[in-house]
């Protein structure tokens, strides 16, 4: 799909800040992948944001880059400001409404991927039945097509949302080529990216979860 060039582009500093707002604590490579920016550029932005007290870096197994309380407040303000300046509130709100129609179905599919009900007994899907997995992936592919249509205007209006299209497409392609963890399990899985898109729509519109 091609988009017009009139889309609103978000500056790298806000993009780095807002990416953390939507994905939570993450390593540099994950932030860069989510933002669609080279690692050195993201790192440089994150360091500046850290100096300003908006992000922080925790050591340890569950650490990484994350927002501070001040960073969360600053992001809310700046992302709302961006929405007004770009004049894209109505487009984002409409996309969010269409997203909410698809969200329960995506969650059904993730549930079916993880838990399979046979004879009324639900147990973990051991992925030993390729036909069943293929059925779930077929439906996920169909939903992905509908999601692309539902978000078409959003992608046309705001550059930063296009990154979700790329990441969702990647996750689906990998899952279909046999990397089963890209449906629900990996941090770059279809569900993980979808969940972040959900969070982004809420955060952008200023709706509490």
């Amino acid at each position, binding site marked *: 799909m091609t988009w017009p060039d009139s889309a609103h582009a978000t500056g790298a500093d806000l993009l780095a800040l807002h990416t953390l707002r939507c994905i*939570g*604590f993450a390593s540099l490579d994950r932030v860069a992948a989510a933002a669609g920016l080279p690692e050195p550029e993201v790192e440089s932005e994150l360091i500046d944001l850290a100096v300003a007290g908006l992000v922080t870096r925790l050591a340890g197994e*569950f650490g990484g880059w*994350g927002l501070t309380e001040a960073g969360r407040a600053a992001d809310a303000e700046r992302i709302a400001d961006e929405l007004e300046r770009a004049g894209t509130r109505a487009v984002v709100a409409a996309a969010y409404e269409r997203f909410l129609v698809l969200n329960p179905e995506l969650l059904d599919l993730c*549930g079916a991927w993880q838990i399979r009900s046979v*004879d009324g007994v639900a147990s973990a899907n051991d992925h030993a039945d390729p036909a069943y997995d293929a059925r779930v992936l077929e439906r996920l592919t169909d939903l992905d097509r509908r999601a692309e249509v539902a978000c078409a205007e959003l992608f046309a209006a705001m550059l930063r949302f296009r990154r979700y299209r790329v990441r969702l497409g990647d996750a689906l392609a990998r899952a279909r080529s046999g990397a089963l963890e890209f449906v629900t399990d990996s941090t770059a899985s279809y*569900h993980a990216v979808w969940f972040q898109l959900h*969070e982004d729509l809420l955060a952008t519109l200023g709706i509490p979860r």
Partner: protein
Amino acid sequence: MRWVYPLSPETEEPADVLGGKAQGLVMLRRLGLPVPPGFVIGTAACRAFLRDGRLPAGLDGELAAAIAELEATTHRKLGGPERPLAVSVRSGGSVSMPGMMATILNLGLTAEATAGLAAETGDPRFARDSRRRLLSSYAAATTGGEPIPDDAIGQLRRAVVAVFSSWDSPRAATYRELHGIPHDLGTAVTVQAMVFGNRDDHSGAGVAFSRNPNTGEQVPFGEVLLRRQGDDVVSGGSLTWPLHDLAGREPTVWAGLLEALRRVEEHERDACYLEFTFQAGQLWLLQARPGRFVGAAAVRVAVDLADAGVIGRAEALLRVSPRQLRLVRVPRIVGVGQADLVARGLGAAPGVAVGRVATTADRAVRMAADGPVILARPATSPLDLHGLAAAAGVVTARGGPASHAAVVARAMGKPAVVGVAGLTVDVADASVRAGGRRVPEGTGIAIDGTGGEVVMGAPRVATTAADPHLRRLLEWADEVAGDSTGRDEAARLGAAHAAIRRGASIP
């Protein structure tokens, strides 16, 4: 009548015509139990609608006749300015597709009828609440955002179209695809006179199992909400009371419910599930289906029914599938008294987790350095995921088994309890509250991701494999199969099933 059938004891059409829900209601009527009067639009009308894109010729006339009869039975008038009749419009195919299709309640409450209901009851707030529920269920069922017509028959027609159309919603189609349900069955529509659980202080709604679905124990189990309609109970958004509280508050309703559970169980020779509403102290049953117990509960019910002579041992063995027994090695919390039970939600990822409760992801990460942590959140967002990664288990106040939190917990292999109505996570106070109890951050709790329990401290944890009922069932299995060599539970039961199918007799 060609498309419409009365909800009466004489109706004999099978489930593929009436849908499972209406068939259950006909069974209740045959047992002499209280069911709101109504009728069913069979699945053939749905198939015709989906084929032609419009309601079939002749349905309008039959609908009008069925409504006229319902008005005569109830001495009310649909959409009337005095003694208005309101109806519920529910989907229901021959195969259950929970939550996938449309339901519209309080239909017929036009502006005029709402005023009539307020005047009749002297309770404008009740009338407004009922009208509000119509508007919200109508809006949810018709995604196009069309305004609701203000004539009652028009509302009914649109509602039937909405239910039929919901059969073909992409979400429902996905559900059928995943569960191997044919796409051409269509749904029936059950239309019944509304009974109002939100009517007054002696009204409410609930769900009841004839036995405990977690343990199989022969004690009625369920939940109830006062002054509410049934969808509030099923949606999980409200704080419910344990079913047994009805005994003290509404003894007549309670006695009627026990009798209904007894009669349905006797008729079905199995544990059963009922949805009910009581209006001004009078009990009404809205749905009946088999209990569909799994794991330890299924084993216990089968063994108890065989002991009581209700079913034979061969049938008891056949009622538990070998697949069920794969669940018996999942650890469960056992022997917890009411005093230690903090709250109950929905099990979303199986297993038991024990640890100190944390109310934010950041604190969970910090506390996890000193031992296992249970993360408690109102709902989860991606901002909580590092906390979930650090935690041994998660509990959320909102969300269902199909929520982001549940998907992520299962992906990480962590026990999860979601949809704990009445659980408040107070980050500022660093505590969680439920059932009048304040649990400060750092307190030891445990969660059971199968049964949905949240309990204080470190309770006893066991697997069903040690359960005495299971031991007896497997002894019966070995006798039937004539083999008592050491095999796993599923293999022992599977051998018994094979022997029974070959015609082996029960010693």
